């Protein structure tokens, strides 16, 4: 994972690389990163989460989903999905 932060312009960009090109968890991982950022950053920030170019078979589709605010909001209304995301984000003791 490699983040780029620009405080003055209020942008954050996070690029992540799935372990294998057909990683089925890529969407979930991207969503989790997006949710963590949404929860931890002030409202003024524009968020961009995407897959490192050239590292995943369906990167275009995944990136499109992650960039779509409504898709993300809808996903988080699914309680099962939300539970899984919360588990991913829960602090490890």
């Amino acid at each position: 994972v490699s983040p780029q932060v620009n405080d003055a312009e209020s942008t954050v960009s996070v690029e992540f690389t799935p372990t294998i090109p057909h990683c089925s968890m890529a969407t979930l991982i991207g969503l989790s990163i997006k949710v963590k950022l949404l929860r931890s950053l002030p409202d003024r920030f524009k968020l961009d989460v995407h897959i490192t170019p050239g590292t995943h078979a369906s990167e275009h589709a995944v990136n499109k989903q992650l960039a779509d605010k409504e898709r993300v909001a809808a996903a988080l209304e699914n309680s099962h999905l939300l539970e899984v995301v919360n588990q991913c984000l829960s602090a490890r003791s």
Partner: protein
Amino acid sequence: LKGLGADFTFGFIQVMDGEKDPRNLLVAFQIVRDLIAKNYALGPFVEELFEVTSCYFPVDFTPPPNDPHGIQREDLILSLRAILASTPLFAEFLLPLLIEKLDSDLQSAKLDSLQTLTACCAVYGQKELQEFLPSLWSSLRREVFQTASEKIETECLAALHALSACLSRSVVSSDAEDLLDSFLGNILQDCRHHLCEPDMKLVWPSAKLLQAAASASLRTYHCITHSVLPLLLEQYTKHPQSSQRRTILEMLLGFLELQQKWGHVEEDESTLLSLQAPVCSVVFSALTDASVQLQLVGIKALTLLGSLKGFLSSSDLELVVDHLIRLTLHEDSQSSEAAMAAAGSLAPIYPKVFSGHMVPRLAEELQSGRAEKARDEESSHDLCSLQQRCLQALAAVSTHTSIMRETVPVLLRHLQKVQKGSEAGNTQDMISVCQSLHRVALLCQQDAESCWYFHQTVVPCLLAMAVQAAMQESTHLLLGKALLEEEVLTAMIPVISAATTHLSPELAAQSVSHVVPLFLDGEVSFLPQNNFPCSFQPFGDGECLEAQRRLVALLMAFVCSLPRNVAIPQQEWLLRELLELSCSCNCPFTATTAAKCFAGLVNKHPAGKGAELDAIGPCPLLAGGTTHPVPSVPPGQQLDEILQLAVNSMEPSLVEGPRRMQALTLLLWVRPALDVWVRGAEAASLALIVLPPQVTKALLLRYHPLSSCLTDKLLGLLGDTELGPAVADGFSLLMAESPDVLHKGCHADVRIMFRQRFFTDNVPKLVQGFHEAGPDVKANYLKGLSHVLNHLPKPVLVTELPTLLSLLLEALSCSDHVVQLSTLTCLQPLLLEAPQIMSLHVDTLVTKFLSLTSSPTMAVRIAALRCAHALTCLPTPVLLPYKARVIRALAKPLDDKKRLVRKEAVAARGEW
């Protein structure tokens, strides 16, 4: 029963078959154990007996909720295991079962099998294990190589250890195959080659397996190290990269550690000894490598090798000391610390080498360091830390009496040199030396001889230096003499204290007979270099004695650390002088230390007559009246007299009245010398504040009845606008552990539960006072209360909570940020520990916490956010109505200008 023979066994098997109730099973298991242990005839039914018990393996049992019998899964597991592992007769049936269960997917099954295997090895021999060894090894290897679970890895290693130990124990006839050899041969064959690939995944599992086998017995150790050690040494040379060398050296270290366990038995055949030269060269090479991590492993290895008897030759030792010195002084701070610790461990083993080589070198560096520093200001920073390191190293290496006798003079000489110099930064240098002396003092405490040597050498020397410095200042204002600075004297206190606490009473009495007359009578004859220009009178009057008075701090360090049954000569006189000094001196430092000294002495004084009664009514001593001087007064009564005197000195300041009258009254009671400064009121209030908490605490610790009267006075003073805040802070002093005077390490008299008692006696009054107080002083009561609550043991706090909660909630609305902070700090653990009670007030809590997250004070914002975080411990139904509001409100602190605040906000908001 035995007379029934095998029929009994068969009958029992039939009875037990199919049993499901855990209670019955426990009894049945016990019976089977007895059958085996007490040699009942099992006849042809061994296998049946095994079947009827092993069908329960591995145990799968979840106790029902609210089980009245309290049988746990562990009980069944252990009971069953005791049966299965009880006899070699079961081996042929059990081992295949274990191997099968080891292949299972269930982690608990694997663990159970491994643990049972380990238990079996205690009773089995080669004969039972013979045909199963290859499968057992292959399963163990597979588990260790593939597992992600630390627990399984640990159990596998333990099982391998047990197997190897078992095989080692067996007696073999001359023509039979030695199973141990072939077993170890298999292990080596499968693991050895992985050691040659330090970057790869299997290197550590292989190393651990080999180490587990090697640690089982002398034979296994011999066999494995014979094969592995030369290989590792070769690999070290082959792989030049630091990270790889580090892995190899760490593996080597693991085997070296086993040498301590087994190697001492057969020295002439030891593989390690035959490889002495290459091992040393590898370790020394690690010490000179650029990578800090590799250096650290090298240092560990060095410490280990040093502890092996006869391993290092004397020329090796000199080289070792050279390396340690270089690492300590010139390398990275991590390596430096590790090297100092290593020197500390090795010094007691080779005291002559260290005292002959290391100490002179360090002393030399210390000397030349100062010279360099004086000449060249620019590089003074580097040399500063070089000096610090020398000082720390001298302390670290003083782990043996003979070495300590060399290092202490070096440190003292250095201190004297620094004092004579006139450069800036002297204060810090002196403090560093004192810190080193303190470390040495702590090291000496366990050995009576070292302790006395240290005390005899250091205490008079420090006192002499201090007295000398003070005398030179008698005619000037305090300028430039670093030794008399508060920080330096404060740094000396722990040194003297540590040097005194562990003395035997006889030796302590000897020392007391010198030190107390020094201060009371100016008896300087016992000090080294005692040609002083004038007399030493720290308790005398006069401005010129200001510097001398400061040295009371050193007296305090000594006297308050004495063991309890050491009589102090002229104790009454000393107490009176201290009392007077603390009331009349206008230097806060001196006044405080004099008060502390007074308090420490009062605490250890034999109890006064008044202490026999637990006074509930008005305090008899404060009822007025003067004391009548009585010759040869018993000690208890002396204490009461002293306290009366103390109270009489304080009384005037407590007179209520209009402010002007009070100031005038105070001035009239203040010593003429202080009138000049026109800070009389301050001095008196200084005495008031400085003296009572210390004295009160001293008494508090011993439950003297006067303590409640004095505490009441303090409570009353909380309402005073001028003195209130200082009194409130004083409550912290009453409850907390004071590091230098009134705690157990100094042999003070500390009754158990004094905090609880203080709480029970005084919190109701605090609460009442709070409610009755005017708005401008309410904060004082809250501050006092917060201090009391913060130091109380948690169980007591939780019990008293409901009554105090409304007070605390009110405190949150107080505008004083100190009160807010202490209340928030108080509330946070309460949220974690008493969520049910706190739930009742969730609305107020949420509102207050959120509003405090915008406080102008950073500490308050952080504390409020932590409290908001802690709120999540409350039951979910209670929190849900507030969820949206809190999450919205916490968005703002995410953008706080302080990073620490943002960090807390992220944690809190994430949790919500």
